[in-house]
């Protein structure tokens, strides 16, 4: 019963409020699940973000109104099925969506109170690589193959700081040393192909750190790497985050890595955030049937008793065209007619724990 009132009080992804969202001011806390004191301004606050791709096959609804926030120094992990919109969700923050065919069609993205979607190109460029930096998934293809590492790092530094070329190079050497590249001064003049995958990802991290960002967006930075190298990178990021106090958005589909790194987790499915909770809460008391299914379908490395894996049946969703009802309904054990008709909105079920499911009481009782 308590649930209903929450929905009416503030429902961030209600379809009928979607249009007016763009012009909303930061003082309105519609996107927040719980009203908070005005003092605690979030570092990043995404509200009802909608991104579509206008392709020859039709409109791909990649983001269908997602809302979330990141605090200073916090690590938010975004997990979800391939194609659920994780990458599009974070690239939209810096307006790095390939356009055409992509377009952000609604919502707002407040970074320290400024709506990034209304910034002009110049102001946006100051934030890109400055206050917000990105680390991409594939270190093999994310560096320019014909440009020296030195040039690739210094161009980032010099775009944001008034330094001479020599100073920028000196800084680049420090950065490479900081991310654990041996003999950094020598390696500076190398080309990307002279580095291993793990080393390239370190270079990407050095680049991301170069202008002391307040937020680092890491899009599956270890997926392409071996587990032993992944462990090196995860520990490096964890250490740097603690030292520098940088907030991190870490996209991953590895729930183990997320358990290691994250403070809070957002679970995405078909362009929606279906659940968000502090990391311990999410793993201990998952409430959305998709999250529950995801956790049950993982074998535990440390588990001796062999319980049969509980697979989620059915197929991943198709984002082409309009969806009706809960996007997970076709694969959901709990789905009812209501689920197939009406899209559930995120509602808080415990402090900081919000779920978009009509039957969360039922699912939590079963989990």
């Amino acid at each position, binding site marked *: 019963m308590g649930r209903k009132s929450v929905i009416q009080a503030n429902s961030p992804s209600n379809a009928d409020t979607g249009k007016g969202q763009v012009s909303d001011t930061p003082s309105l806390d519609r996107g927040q699940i719980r009203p908070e004191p005005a003092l605690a301004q979030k570092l990043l606050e995404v509200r009802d973000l909608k991104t579509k791709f206008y392709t020859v096959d039709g409109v791909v609804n990649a983001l269908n109104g997602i809302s979330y926030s990141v605090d200073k120094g916090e690590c938010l992990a975004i997990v979800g099925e391939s194609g659920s919109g994780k990458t599009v969700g974070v*690239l939209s923050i*810096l307006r*790095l969506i*390939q356009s055409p065919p992509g377009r952000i069609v609604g919502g707002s993205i407040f970074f320290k109170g400024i709506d990034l979607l209304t910034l002009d*190109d110049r102001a946006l*460029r*100051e*934030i*890109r*690589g*400055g206050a917000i*930096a*990105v680390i*991409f998934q*594939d270190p093999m*293809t*994310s*560096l*320019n*193959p*014909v*440009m020296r590492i030195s*040039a690739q790092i210094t*161009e*980032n530094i010099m*775009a*944001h700081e008034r330094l001479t070329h020599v100073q920028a190079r000196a800084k680049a050497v420090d950065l490479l040393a900081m991310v654990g590249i041996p003999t950094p001064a020598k390696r500076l003049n190398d*080309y990307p*192909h*002279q580095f291993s995958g793990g080393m390239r990802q370190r270079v*990407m991290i050095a*680049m991301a750190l170069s202008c002391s960002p307040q937020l680092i967006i890491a899009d599956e930075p270890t997926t392409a790497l071996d587990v032993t190298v992944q462990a090196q990178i995860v520990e490096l990021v964890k250490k740097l985050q603690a030292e520098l106090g940088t907030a991190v958005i870490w996209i991953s589909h590895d729930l183990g890595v997320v358990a290691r790194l994250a403070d809070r987790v957002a679970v995405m499915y078909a362009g929606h955030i279906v659940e968000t909770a502090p990391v311990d809460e999410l793993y201990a008391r998952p409430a959305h049937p998709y999250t529950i299914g995801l956790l049950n379908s993982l074998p535990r490395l440390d588990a001796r008793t062999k319980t049969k894996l509980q697979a989620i049946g059915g197929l991943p969703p198709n984002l082409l065209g309009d969806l009706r009802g809960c996007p997970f309904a076709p694969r959901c054990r709990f789905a009812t007619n209501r689920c197939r008709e009406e899209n559930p909105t995120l509602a808080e079920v415990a402090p900081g724990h919000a779920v978009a499911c009509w039957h969360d009481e039922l699912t939590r009782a079963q989990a």
Partner: protein
Amino acid sequence: MRFIIRRLLQSLIVVFGVSIIAFGMLFMTGDPTEILLGNGADHMTVAQIQDFRVKMGFDRPWYVQYASFVGKAVQGDFGYSFVRHEPAYEVIMDKMPATIQLASVAFVLSLLVSIPLGVLSAMRPHKPIDRIATVLALIGQSIPSFWLGILLILLFGVQLKWLPISGSGSWQHIIMPAITLAAFPIARNMRLTRSSMLDFMQRDFVRTARAKGISETRVVYAHVLRNSLLPLVTSIGLEAGFLLGGSVITETIFGWPGVGREIVSAIGSKDFNVVQAGVIMLALIFAGVNLIIDLAYSWIDPRIRYDT
């Protein structure tokens, strides 16, 4: 170093192949003795003809003839021109500067026009400037060069009388032949630049560059363009061949006193030594240019430099 040696060997093979073809030309058309003597043979006795055959060495097996041909050719001896009564090599080398001049001007012209045009249309795909450039490229690629040459002559030479129709001597003379020769490379390089730019524009590292907050101009020139030039460089190597080969037609149309025109007239007068000398010298230059292009490629692309 290994790389250079390998490329040198490959170039040698190309030149070797061309020399065989140039040599074989004479035999493919029939009995070389009859071809060379032409109608003249009617007035000669069988013994005289046989004498001529022996004098020219046509009585020996073909591989012996080829070996002696190559042996002399490496020393720059392609035999005598029957028409000009001077060594065939000198006939060709006399005309070489004019051909190189025309090819170079066309080459520079093609790069100066095609790359900026390709970049422009890649920056605004499917917008008016891109459409216009695409249509122009289509015309440039499909119109035969003799036809374009004649059109130019009619328009600028005959109608407007802005430019000299034929010959050489002043800078005005080179304009129309250069445009004629460059039309196809311009069209092709423009399309290549465009598609390669569009391809690289979508690469991950370009997204990385944008995420750094550098200006869009820098993204395009420092990241996209440099990578896009790689496929272009390969095509430019082939283009050297096209420019040299294309000069045969263009030089003939515009009366440009180069190797191409010389070869055509030598074919007409069955002056095969000159034809052979011309074809082989052009092939040598072509191989040389390609070698330089390959070295340039390895200079632009660090991955190649280190792999070998």
